[in-house]
């Protein structure tokens, strides 16, 4: 079935931590103008914050690079958010997605980023190539009941 695009936005920014707030504001403004449920917006905002923080903290550890955030709303109510970095990539995706697993405990990273993205979205896909970068795709429906 072909999905029609209703609205789409793309944001690129360098991997500085103050841009985590920018990514949240952009996503929530974009979704509220599309009439998404307040609860859905709040959950996606949190999921995006986790994904973008991962890109900044882990993807570009010690280096600066570009993070892109893409959000598409389809006519059938699907919201697809894609967070992309061209950083170090993840060696073992399964391990990275385990709750409480973190490679940065000294920075008090709780290791819950993926667990939160998973529980706040309907579907999550992670593609990563070591040395090339990581792409996280979050799917969620615009209303609680889809």
């Amino acid at each position, binding site marked *: 079935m072909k999905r029609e695009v209703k609205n789409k936005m793309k944001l690129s920014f360098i991997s500085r931590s103050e841009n985590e707030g920018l990514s949240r504001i952009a996503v929530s403004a974009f979704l509220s103008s599309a009439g998404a449920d307040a609860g859905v917006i709040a959950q996606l905002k*949190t999921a995006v*914050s986790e994904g973008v923080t991962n890109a900044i903290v882990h993807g570009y550890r010690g280096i600066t690079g570009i993070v892109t955030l893409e959000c598409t709303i389809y006519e059938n109510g699907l919201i697809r958010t894609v967070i992309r970095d061209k950083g170090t990539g993840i060696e073992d995706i399964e391990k990275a997605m385990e709750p409480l697993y973190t490679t940065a405990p000294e*920075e008090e990273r*709780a290791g819950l980023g993926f667990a939160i993205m998973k529980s706040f979205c309907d579907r999550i896909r992670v593609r990563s190539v070591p040395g090339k970068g990581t792409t996280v795709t979050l799917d969620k429906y615009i209303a609680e009941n889809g």
Partner: protein
Amino acid sequence: MIPITEYDSERKILTALLQGEIDHHCAGEIRRCIDIAIDKYSPELLALDFSGVTFMDSSGIGLVMGRYKLMKETGGETIVLNPRDDIRKLMELASLGRLTKIAYTAHSAAKASSGRKVP
């Protein structure tokens, strides 16, 4: 945003009033601020008051867990006060309740109702 810390020397309670959004960007500064106060007063109880927190991601969970561990080193306890519903849900998702009690105070209830418009 930098938290406001208050120390009750009689009851040995250090309260940190957290405000605004807690993400990875500001968690480090909040952590330093609270840890300086813990070091200064050596409280028996650390109360993290979330009344003024409007957004939090897993960085906030890390912040609470880290303070819990630090307080535990000297035999102290940590309590979480007045988180909003969505923030409480996130805390429950992280099973934070196994480490610290999550409670609501009359102080915050009064503050919440005073902010409401009288019809």
